[in-house]
């Protein structure tokens, strides 16, 4: 394993470790919120013990009272301003070829050539891939930068564009296949 692979392995571990909220639920389980928006409830729901020693509940025990005031505040993401969006768009357009730039300005989408076939960026969670070995099909893929919610949308495309253009395997290795369809004009 070289240094880059080691970093990649650590990336994967970190992706699972970025917890922004760990909240104990009334039934004893924990709600864990990750930086990328995933939410997981872990643990086993347990009955709240009867407050009188030696007594048992006759019916379903009440949950612990909710204390909203005591809840921790989840980390808030910085707001993306129009100026940030413009700056991100300028950087993205500076990385596009003339044809890609024309497509992007006209449709908000553009194609990126890769050895495995072109990929269309511009629609979040629905990236279109035309595999070279299946020319009549389009695969719909989902790939995003890690913790992208704070980024202006053009930055998301810059991130994916550079990854696709320079290290396409890195992109395809993590792509989540959403489905296939016949090629659309």
């Amino acid at each position, binding site marked *: 394993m070289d240094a880059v692979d080691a970093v990649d392995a650590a990336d994967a571990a970190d992706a699972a470790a970025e917890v922004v909220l760990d909240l104990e639920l009334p039934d004893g389980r924990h709600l864990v919120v990750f930086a990328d928006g995933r939410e997981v409830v872990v643990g086993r729901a347990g009955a709240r013990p009867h407050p009188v020693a030696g007594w048992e509940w006759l019916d379903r025990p009440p949950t612990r009272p909710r204390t909203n005031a005591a809840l921790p505040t989840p980390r808030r993401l910085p707001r993306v301003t129009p100026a940030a969006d413009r*700056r991100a768009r300028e950087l993205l357009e500076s990385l596009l*070829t003339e044809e890609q730039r024309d497509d992007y300005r006209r449709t908000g989408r553009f194609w990126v050539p890769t050895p495995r076939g072109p990929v269309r960026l511009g629609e979040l969670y629905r990236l279109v891939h035309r595999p070279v070995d299946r020319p009549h099909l389009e695969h719909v893929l989902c790939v995003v930068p890690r913790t992208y919610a704070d980024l202006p949308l053009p930055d998301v495309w*810059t991130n994916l564009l550079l990854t696709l253009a320079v290290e396409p395997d890195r992109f395809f290795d993590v792509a989540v296949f959403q489905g296939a369809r016949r090629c659309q004009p």
Partner: protein
Amino acid sequence: MGTMRILDHTGDTALAWSVDDPASLAEAEALFDRLRAERKIPFARAAGAPAGDAERVRSFDPAAEEIVWVRPVTGG
């Protein structure tokens, strides 16, 4: 004169350095190391060159014209 651009909520944050200015060079190199430690990914390009002409860099190159830092990608 080189520039690093780090994608963030402002679009990107830029840091410039000059090979004639040891202080700016040291600052840029320290930032490069810090961003690598954060597992961000650097791509270098000639100023204004399209993404297809960019290349992944492994260490700080004072002669680079522009280094764009992106984040690792993941399946959604």
